[in-house]
């Protein structure tokens, strides 16, 4: 059982060069070194990554779910921001 003084950490994995680190989950560890090792042991058992970040969960500033109207709804009416009105040649590949 993690004791109350075992901090929570968020784990980010970069799966390939050129991609960004993605959030994979969280874990408990006493300090940064052990957090990085635990991230390796918990989240990269099946070749998931080439690079790991661990960040103290307490360092994350989160939006308030109650603000979601103000924060996210105004974007719903602005469909012109999606680049879906262009024909992209097949040769361009994945964008």
């Amino acid at each position: 059982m993690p004791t109350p003084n075992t901090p929570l950490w968020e784990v980010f994995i970069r799966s390939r060069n050129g991609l960004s680190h993605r959030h994979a989950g969280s874990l408990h560890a006493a300090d940064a070194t052990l957090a990085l090792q635990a991230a390796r042991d918990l989240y990269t058992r099946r070749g998931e990554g080439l690079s790991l970040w661990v960040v103290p969960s307490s360092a994350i500033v989160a939006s308030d779910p109650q603000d979601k109207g103000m924060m996210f709804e105004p974007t719903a009416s602005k469909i012109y921001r999606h680049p879906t009105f262009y024909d992209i040649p097949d040769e361009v590949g994945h964008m």
Partner: protein
Amino acid sequence: MIVEAPASPLARYALRRADDALILGHRLSEWSAMAPTLEEEMALSNMALDLIGQSRALYTYAGEVEGKGQSEDDFAYMRREREYQNILLVERPNGDFAQTMLRQFFFAAFAYPYWLAMMRSTDATLAAIAAKSEKEIAYHLRHSSEWVLRLGDGTAESHRRLAEALEELWPYTGELFAVLPDETALIAAGVAVDPDTLRGEWEATVRAVLERATLAMPSGGWMQQGGREGRHSEHLGHLLAELQYVPRMIPGATW
């Protein structure tokens, strides 16, 4: 069918190293569902799987060298206690977490330079097994030394437990450097590694970590031996009873 000791010195050598890895791996697996945290549960299981993987490669190679059709399972499941030639350190009971981590640290501090040196073996298979094992053991060394540091330099309770583990396990470290008579020719041929050449590095690694962990490095002293000759502590028989139970009860079982 009981498997007798191989005749080939190379097969016997591979078997001894396989026994070290299998027994230590089995010990670590005993922490499954018992570890202090979920994170450490996975770390211990990962190390167990690395070691059991190393033992499989070495058992398989011993079987190939001996050439009597013996498989990795034959060696693991069908040998008696006296035919196991692992060092006594790896069969020590898990004890508490400090004891498990210090045992891991002592072993990894030796195995890391051992496999690095073995990568230059004139035997291609041993060199290949070494190249894979070296990376795995490098992590075991890092993980266990971080824990030794934190336990020694942690609370009064963790320090006391690590100090007790040190007293308990130190006499079993001498056998890491044991050389059997049938190994000297392999060492001379560049097939096997002379463990004596690794002693300086092992001591430097152990001393540095213990000092940072605020524990004094013990100096020499009487060392327990016997595992390499098949003379084991009472603990190995109990371990093998669990390890070998199913394949002996239901020979040829697969799942």
